[in-house]
């Protein structure tokens, strides 16, 4: 026969909670990282490029309307539709091939391009991107739903790697990416 010990039980529970908390934290940070790492750069994004030991090759630049950035020595490099790690890899390859031996490159997005929200919200328009923003928060920024809004799901339009807009059904917790367009559709009932 086994007896449940209250203190031991509590300790076990608290350990379990700690474990769950840690797992949750790891999952959350992983999701956040995934959210940023799979972000495709696009026109309007302002990025900081640093080449370790080569200040003259470092600087800030904005992805142009043609989707490229200007890198000293290298020239125009296509950035749009690439993730930050992919762009970093492209620049490292180009520098390594002709100009710098084993370059150490870091890229950071300083300013993301805005996102857009339209449809049945009180203030549709263009809004500055905030890291970690979800559809729910975006709708709040747009001053909430109108009376005719279908609350969930909403449409999210995001460009794929070919630059083609793709429509997704998004929940309120879906992360918003820079350049996304959120469309809150009208309800029938």
């Amino acid at each position, binding site marked *: 026969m086994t007896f449940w010990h209250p203190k031991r039980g509590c300790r076990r529970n608290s350990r379990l909670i700690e474990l769950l908390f840690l797992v949750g934290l790891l999952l959350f940070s992983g999701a956040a990282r995934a959210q940023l790492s799979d972000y495709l750069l696009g026109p309007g994004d302002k990025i900081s490029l640093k080449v370790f030991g080569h200040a003259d090759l470092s600087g800030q630049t904005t992805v142009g309307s043609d989707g490229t950035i200007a890198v000293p020595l290298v020239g125009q490099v296509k950035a749009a539709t690439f993730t930050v790690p992919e762009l970093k890899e492209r620049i490292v390859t180009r520098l390594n091939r002709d100009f710098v031996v084993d370059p150490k490159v870091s890229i950071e997005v300083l300013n993301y391009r805005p996102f857009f929200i339209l449809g049945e919200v009180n203030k549709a328009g263009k809004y500055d991107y905030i890291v970690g923003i979800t559809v729910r928060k975006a709708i709040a920024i747009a001053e909430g739903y109108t*009376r*005719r809004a279908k609350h969930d799901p909403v449409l999210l339009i995001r460009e794929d790697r070919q630059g083609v807009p793709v429509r997704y059904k998004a929940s309120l917790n879906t992360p918003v990416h820079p350049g996304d367009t959120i469309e809150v559709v009208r*309800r*029938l*009932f």
Partner: protein
Amino acid sequence: MALGLLIYGALAESGMAQTLDLINISADFSSEAQAVQESVNNQPRTEYQPIGIRLGQFLSFGDTALSPQAVSDPTLTPLRPGATPDKSAASLRDSQVNSFLLRPGLETDLVFDDNVFRVDERTVSDTIFVLRPTLTLESDWLNHFVDIKVGGEFGRHQDFKDEDYDDYFISTRPRIDVDEHTVLELELGYSSAHTERGSTDDELEGPEPAIDRLLNVEADWQYQADKYSTRMLYRYSQIDALDNGQIERDFLDAHGHVWLLRQGYELTTGTTAWLRPGLLFIDYRQSRDDNGFVRDNQGWSFVAGLTIDRSAVSFLELGLGVLFHDFEQNGLDDFLDLVYVGRLLWNITPLFTLDVKAERTVEVVESTSAPISLDDSVSLELAWDPRENLIFGATTGFTRSDYATLPGQDKEEDRVEIGFNVQYLLNSNLYVEARYDYEQLDSSQAGSDYQNNVFTLRAGVQL
């Protein structure tokens, strides 16, 4: 229908006529509830509301020139009838006579009625053309409000010309925002309207529709501070029943007085307990009618209830009490009975509203055998606006009327009403509507039963 006369001035904007039962011991105290204001039928449709004709700033008080800026300032929203007044000290200080709006409107109905005389057998149908002009002059002030409305309803029958009617009314409704806690609403109205066939007011069955002229005066004082709210309503009505051909109707001329007090206390946010005592006096000009029947009567009621108005989603009001009524006529038994009032309004979705009402009231009627009836009524209304300018409605109602009669002359009526309508707002100046209404009356009096179907096509113009 009790001594209700068509007062459609108050509804000129919606273009819908309605009957107000002016002499009964009841009142709607729920119009300002959040959920009621958010319901489909009360939604502001700014794109489709008429803007009116501004008469300009032609009035001023002494040296205080009217400030046009106050009107053009988009942050200052002029109060509209029924709107909650902005009672902040600043807005009261700024309230000035500014300007008036003129709102003309015209509705035309094409009506097909399959039982014009509301009879059980040998029914006849007719097509009726109805013209309903209205003209409203209303203030456009930050605080206080006044309007003057003039209008008419003119019905022309294709076959039964004797059923043609010409109704008209004039009314004014000043509202004085006394201070941030107190509002006084007044109403003065005069109308002339025909009694509808099949209504209790039509019991005398004249060759033409009978005409009642009614003078109505009402004062409604509302006070609200913290958790306490008080509302006192007094209504005076004077009815002049015109003779109909050879039929004398002078014995129906009467004065009516209604007092209602509603004292509320907010138990928790949005939940209010209230008490509502009321008095009703009906005094007929002739002490006895031609048959020696004394119609004078009076009564009181006392209702206690609870109102739950916690969100814009639902509104619930329940009240239960007693009513007492006594008569001057020997042989008419005084009675003490239960009285109730209930309403559930539920905005099931933002675009779909359900409104259920139930009530027991004392109605003053023009029946020759009874001065009043005790009515139990329940109604259900659905409204749905899938688009901003497209509104569907469905209503159903049941009323059981128990007439206060002398022994051996018992009279009871069950009335069922069902209606469907769809309204399409073309723009802020034009709208169209299609309606279907079904009515069925089962009466304990032989030969009074009837059923009828009414189809209406309506077009309205408003500026």
